[in-house]
Structure formats: structure tokens, C-alpha cells
């Protein structure tokens, strides 16, 4: 096997970890609240700016900056739910999707207004690991491992805690859960906070690898929706697997030709799969 191809495959796996984390957050919100946050990737962008300013701007330690950014993005998630989603919870789902689309415009242009369109990076260069002839970026390996830990933590949270159980129950049947004495409003807010926190965690991992700019959400935002839908909106394990399939396609096709073509192929495959398996590839 070609050594560079192997490198591309490994790169794809590492990229898949972060995408899977983002898909998990979006899926959680969709499964529980039944809303697609079109602006999810732009909320990640806010987190990346938060880490950037706290670390590079104010000189805070990186870990503290990340912790504050995660908390901040979680709070932003709650705010989005209370201000935008809650008032229109009973209207057509497509209206909710479009309202968060308005949020996308707002966040992108507000970031442009505050920070300009410059590309900014933390200025941290993590070492490259050499494994024989293969080079692996530490930043990506770190991002992959933390994303996995985050996903596992979420799994146990949903399985072992009361709120987690209530969240899973509400995703299954939102009418009955109310009769069981669970307060829907509080569960929705908790879900938005967790979805936000996952976006915050992803933003800390992404800011180590990529420059942040106001429109960075446009590059991976559509990708996350594809992953969620491919895995079946609301199906977390499906989304997790789909993240790796998509990231492999992008990585391998990108290796043989160019990145844009890889994305074209990923989106085209998504469209085709939607016709074959409209409710997700893993739905029985």
C-alpha cells in the first residue's frame, strides 16, 4: 500500500473524530428538541474566537481558556434555545430551521464586525509524530482522542444519570414523558446546554488545527448536516459511523485529486444515499 495513501487514511480517521463529536451534538439537539440548528458550525466559530482571544489576546493559560470557552458556548446554546427556538417551538419545523439560519447570518456578520475578516491562529505548533515513514500531526491525534473521550462521556451521561435518561426518553416519546412528571422545558434547556458544550469542546480541538475566521462555519457546517442525516437524524451511533465514512471519502479523494472534488463527491454521495435510504443508512 502506498505510504502516502496510508497517511491520508489515518488523517481521515483523525478528522472523523472531531466531525463525529460535532455530529453528536447536532444529533442530540435534533433527536430531543426536533430542531435542526443550521447555525451549529457558527456557534463552533464563536467558541474558536473565545479560545483565541482568551489565550492569544489576554494571555490566559490554554486549558483555562478552553474551559471558559466550553462554558461560554454552552451558555450560548441555552440562549439560542430560549431566545430563538422556544418562541416558535410549536410552529412548522422548517421555520425553526430557517430561524437558526438567520442566526447564521447574524453570527457570521457580527464576528466580521468585531474581528474583521483576518485569519487568526493561536500560534501553537504542536510537534509531528514520526512513525516509520508516516507523519502524524499531534494536534489531530489529540483532537481525535479528546473527541472520543467526549463521546464516551456523553454516552455514560445519557445512560447513567437521571437527566440523561429523561433526555433519551423524551427523544422516544415526547408526550408520554410529560405524563411521567418530567419537565420538558428543563430537559430542552439541558439538551441545548450539552449540545453547546459539545460544540465548545469541538471548537477547542479545531482551533488547534485551523485558523479561525468569521466564515469558517461554511466550510464544515454543511458537512455536519450531511453526516447527521446520513446516520439518521437523531441516531447517534449512526452519525458517529457516518462521520468516519465521510471523512475517509474526503481524505482519500482529496489525496488522489483535489479537496473541492472530494467535497463534491461527498455531497453527491449524500444526495444519492438520501434516495436509497431516506431515513439514514443504518436504519433497519
Amino acid at each position, binding site marked *: 500500500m502506498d505510504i502516502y495513501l496510508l497517511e491520508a487514511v489515518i488523517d481521515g480517521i483523525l478528522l472523523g473524530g472531531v466531525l463525529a463529536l460535532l455530529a453528536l451534538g447536532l444529533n442530540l439537539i435534533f433527536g430531543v428538541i426536533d430542531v435542526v440548528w443550521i447555525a451549529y458550525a457558527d456557534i463552533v466559530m464563536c467558541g474558536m474566537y473565545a479560545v483565541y482571544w482568551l489565550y492569544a489576546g489576554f494571555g490566559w493559560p490554554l486549558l483555562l481558556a478552553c474551559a471558559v470557552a466550553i462554558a461560554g458556548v454552552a451558555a450560548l446554546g441555552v440562549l439560542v434555545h430560549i431566545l430563538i427556538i422556544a418562541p416558535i417551538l410549536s410552529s412548522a419545523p422548517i*421555520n425553526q430551521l430557517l430561524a437558526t*439560519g438567520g*442566526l447564521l447570518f447574524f453570527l457570521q456578520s457580527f464576528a466580521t*464586525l468585531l474581528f474583521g475578516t483576518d485569519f487568526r491562529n493561536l500560534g501553537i505548533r504542536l510537534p509531528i509524530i514520526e512513525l516509520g515513514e508516516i507523519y502524524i500531526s499531534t494536534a489531530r491525534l489529540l483532537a481525535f482522542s479528546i473527541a472520543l473521550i467526549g463521546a464516551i462521556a456523553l454516552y455514560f451521561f445519557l445512560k447513567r444519570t437521571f437527566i440523561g435518561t429523561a433526555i433519551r426518553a423524551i427523544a422516544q416519546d415526547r408526550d408520554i414523558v410529560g405524563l411521567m412528571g418530567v419537565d420538558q422545558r428543563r430537559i430542552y434547556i439541558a439538551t441545548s446546554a450539552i449540545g453547546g458544550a459539545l460544540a465548545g469542546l469541538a471548537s477547542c480541538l479545531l482551533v488547534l488545527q485551523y485558523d479561525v475566521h468569521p466564515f469558517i462555519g461554511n466550510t464544515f457546517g454543511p458537512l455536519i448536516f450531511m453526516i447527521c442525516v446520513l446516520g439518521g*437524524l437523531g441516531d447517534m451511533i449512526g452519525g458517529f459511523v457516518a462521520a468516519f465514512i465521510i471523512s475517509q471519502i474526503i481524505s482519500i479523494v482529496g489525496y488522489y485529486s483535489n479537496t473541492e472534488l472530494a467535497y463534491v463527491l461527498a*455531497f453527491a454521495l449524500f444526495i444519492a444515499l438520501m*434516495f436509497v435510504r*431516506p431515513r439514514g443508512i443504518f436504519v433497519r
Partner: protein
Amino acid sequence: MNARHATLLAGLAILLCLPYFTPTYFLHLLIQVLIWSFIFTAWSMMGRFGFVSLGHGAFMGVGAYVPALLWNYYDVTPWAGIPLGVMLSALLALVIGYPCFRFRVVGHYFALVTLALSQVVMLSIVAARDITGGSLGFTPRAAGHSWYALQFPEKSYFYFIALVLWLGGLAVWGWIDRGIGREALDAISEDEEAASAIGIDVMREKLRVTVISAALTALGGAIYGQYFMYLNPETVSGISVSLQIVFAAIVGGMYDMLGPTVGALVTISLNEGLRVGFGTHFIGAANTIYGILLILCIIFMPRGIVGTLQTMNMPRSPTKPVPTE
């Protein structure tokens, strides 16, 4: 009825006389408003029935790039290139629409599939950078004042072209509105299963309105390209222009004939006013305010400006419910 006809005629007369005493800058704005109104109207032809497409950037991109590429590389006149682009767009709509409707891809899923389509077209244009110039954009070869090339340095020519285009768009809207298909589509948007149970050919009705909407959007894109003489994958295709189309139509009101036009008027004058007001010091200020307005509009008046005004005027008129899914 006579009073209404008189108002319509007076309005038309004013529109026809406008280029003779309007400063060039305002004429430029008016042309933009007319072209975008046409595109927003085309989108609303589907949107009003609850088929929310986020893929109209794809149709606009195909419509804009095909005639421009043919003109530059093969000297094909836009008179042939534009119909070809429109036809390709209609074909694209058919290829995407048929399986979508066949497999009941609706609501969120339809929005996301069409979103992927607009990304496919945009990224293909960027990927073919040797031919299209990629992200740097593409400039059709200038030919001065020429009917053959459909290029006119004088703005008044394009004003009339855009005016005819816009009136044509409204005429198509009226044709769909009066036709039997409209009742069928209303029924489909309420309940697809029930509509098909009473004998409506759901597939045919949906495909027809989708193809018309896509073809008109492509035509709008082509005229946009001919007027601006500069195409950029980000401004004529992809997620941002798709969302821009959807939002303007919603703000104006997608259930009424003049709603999308009001949407274009409001969004373009807002954008232009804020740009002139803030200057270049506050890049992004315009869209920040725009974004907030959008969210407020969707929360507080889902029927848009025109729809809300109408319900206020006629409080007891039966209002059409917001489509579910």
C-alpha cells in the same frame, strides 16, 4: 375593478418613465431589485406550497455560468446560451426532484438534500478553476453595446430587460395561482397522502412547479451575469446565496404575489442604506442587523411583511395556515 386597473396602469407608466429622470446610481439599485425580485418570486412559487428548497443557488449558478462560459470559449451568443443554461437547470431540477418526490424526501430532509445540491454546484465551479477561474470569479468577454452579445453599457437597457423579466415572473405566478394545479398543490402541502388518495398526481404537480421555479431562477441568474459582467461562485451559487434567496422571500412574504418583490426592495435598500450609512468602517454591520431582522421576522411574522399587512387590513379573511413540514 376599473379603479384597480387604473392604479396598475399608473404604476406601470411610472415604472416605464423611471429611467428617464432617475440618477444612474438609483437605476442601478432598481435593476438589482428587479432581478432579485424575479429570482425570489421564482423561489416562492415552490416555497409557498411548503417545498422549502435551499438549493436555488445551484440553479442560479448553472444559469449564470453556462451562457458566460459558452460566450467566452465558443463565441455562442447568450441568445442561445441562456436557453441552454435554463434547460440544463430544469434538467437538474428534474434529476433531483424526481427521486426526492418518489422517495418522499420532504421537510428538513428536502431542505438538506437541496442544500447539498447547491454545495455540489458551487464546489464544482471552484474545482474547475482552469475553465471557470475558480474562487477568483469569471468575467464574460466585453463586446460594448451589442444585441448579439446581450451587453449594454447603458443602464436603461438593462432596466427595461429587468422590468420585462420581473413582469414575466409575476405573470407566471398569476398563471400558477389561477390554474387548477394550485388547488392540487395546496392540497399536497396540507396532506400529501390525502391528496394522492383523492386522485391528485402528486409527483406531476410537484415536479412541474419545481422545474418552473428552477428554470426561472436560472434565467434570473443569467440576466444577473449579463448585467454585472462578473460571476463569482460564492455570489451566484452555494449555501449563502441559497439562504439569501429563502430569507428575502420570507421577509417579504412568500404567500403573496408581490411579497418576494417587497422582500427584495427591503433587503437591498437595507443593505445599501447601511452600507452608505456605516461606510466601509463597519464591514458586517449590515448583515448583523439583517440577521436579527430575519430571526424576528420568522418568530413574529412568518407570513412576511405583505402577508402581515394583509391580515391586518382584513382581520376576518381566512388566512392560509403556515405549511407543516
